[in-house]
């Protein structure tokens, strides 16, 4: 059980929190969601870890049991193999897939921030009515089907799609470009679909910002650009971090975007896991891929959770 370090003073419980003190009935309220999350969120990871230590075999389910009962001696033998993990690290393919996922996710996150920041800033600085309208305009795509928004780009980026048509009629290119099924399309798809996840936390942070600080800097003769770097950016930092994590973490494991917009050579680990599971039916190896991905992402996830602690 984790206890907060002594130096950190626990926030004083509010009146309401003291009222809902912990009795039997209240433990029931706590236990229902807690048990559900334990059963269907936490324990599944243990199962994945267990299966990542077994061997693939042709059976139902297609992996070897960890404990094997020997009918003669009445002893159980534990059969654990790290072969799946060794295989992951020995093969260039998986390492490349992890690295390329991290690269694609990082670059896309950067561009999402670049496009999202002006929008969030503009919304935070608008009047109440236009703020609601603009905010709704950001939220609407966020609620609209992810799959269909990725699909929408397929029609635009095709060889004879709208983007190529426009570029050709303007005279920028003479023959259609291959945009669909390239890494570029994957970047575009991630930036597009995850943009609302960046804008919303940025907006929340910028909205809280005290504009008089920027005005003070400007009054004292700071150039607008320097005022932005020295005042606005540091104040927006929590929002920037939250937005980047909300985009980066799921983007690393993205499956839909690389398989619809990417080419056959677009290597992303979510797609590798999918193929390993559905095409090769190698459940233990797919589990090992998942566990390593989880280890890579556990740092960013913990970091994000710390940000949420203030709210708890």
């Amino acid at each position, binding site marked *: 059980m984790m206890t907060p370090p002594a130096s950190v003073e626990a926030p004083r*419980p509010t*009146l*309401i929190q003291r*009222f*809902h003190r*912990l009795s039997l009935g*209240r433990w029931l*309220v*706590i236990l229902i*969601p*807690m048990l*559900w*999350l*334990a059963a*269907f*969120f936490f*324990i*599944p990871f243990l*199962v*994945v870890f267990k299966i990542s230590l077994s061997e693939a075999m042709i059976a139902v*389910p297609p992996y070897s049991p960890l404990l094997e009962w020997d009918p003669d001696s009445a002893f159980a033998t534990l059969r654990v193999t790290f072969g799946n993990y060794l295989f992951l690290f020995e093969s260039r393919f998986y390492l490349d897939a992890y690295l390329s996922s991290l690269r694609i996710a990082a670059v896309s996150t950067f561009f999402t921030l670049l*496009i*999202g920041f*002006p*929008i969030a800033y*503009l919304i935070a600085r608008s009047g109440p009515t236009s703020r609601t309208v603009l905010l*709704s*305009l950001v939220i*609407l*795509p966020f*609620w*609209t*089907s992810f*799959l269909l928004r990725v699909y*929408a*780009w397929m029609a*635009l980026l*095709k060889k004879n*799609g709208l983007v190529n048509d426009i570029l050709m009629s303007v005279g920028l290119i003479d023959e259609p470009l291959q945009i669909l099924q390239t890494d570029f399309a994957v970047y575009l798809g991630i930036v*597009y679909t995850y*943009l609302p996840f960046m804008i919303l936390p940025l907006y929340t942070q910028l909205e809280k910002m005290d504009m008089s600080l920027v005005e003070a800097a400007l009054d004292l003769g700071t150039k607008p650009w320097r005022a932005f770097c020295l005042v606005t950016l540091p104040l927006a930092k929590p929002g920037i971090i939250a937005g980047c994590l*909300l985009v980066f*973490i*799921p983007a690393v*494991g993205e*499956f839909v975007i690389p398989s*619809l917009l990417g080419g056959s050579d677009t290597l992303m680990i*979510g797609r590798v*896991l*999918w193929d390993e*599971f*559905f095409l090769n039916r190698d459940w233990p190896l*797919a*589990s090992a891929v*998942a566990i390593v991905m989880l280890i890579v992402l556990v740092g960013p*996830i913990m970091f*994000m*959770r710390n940000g*949420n*602690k203030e709210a708890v």
Partner: protein
Amino acid sequence: MKQHSLALKLSAGFGFVFLYAPIIALIVYSFNESKLVTVWGGWSLKWYAELFRNDQIMSAAWVSLKIAFISATLAAVLGTLAGFVLSRMRRFRGKTIMAGWVTAPLVMPEVITGLSLLLLFVAMENMFGWPAGRGTTTIVIAHTTFCLAYVAVVVQSRLASMDETLEEAAMDLGAKPVSLFFLITLPMISPAILSGWLLSFTLSLDDLVIASFVSGPGNSTLPMVIFSKVRLGVTPEINALATLMILIVSIAVIAAIVIMRRQNRFQKP
């Protein structure tokens, strides 16, 4: 900051065009007469008629709506409990862990969630004989789990921004904890629960990856059918389907925003 205005407006404007251009193109193409999706052949509703005649899509849509309705409802109940516990109950052992379990599913890559739930269901079936096979039940459990997190976050943030004096007044007047919750807290957060329900409904309706892992044969959801069609290329029927779904979601979102705005009167001063 006036000299920044134009640059800011231009770049933000570019962002909004970027957000909406693909959606608008999709809607326009759904009314295209021509079978070649990108060649304009005049306005027509024929792909909508075609869509409603497609039994595979229609039955998958029905399966998805059913799953979304049940999952959203379960997630609304469990998520409200979780959000309430996190913001209105004093610190207890495990509260930090619970906070982590509530936030982590929001960012967890779907392939990991899907794989881990499937392996859990297989292990459970071997040990207890339940759930027997995979289908609607397993998809509902999976969707409830990740939607629960969204509801909890929405409810928790509403409770945090809400004025506590009403609850304190009821407390002073001698309300029991249970009646305090049902008479004061629940009505005050009901708009948040409703919008959490709507969000869960759309998320469940949209999920491809997790459903693909935990569904059984013959239990294809709508996104699974769309994905298998779309993989082969752009089709006019899917454009029509997408337009209808965007329309429904837009109405729901606008309704949710109006509801949430009405709730502002309970906000902290």
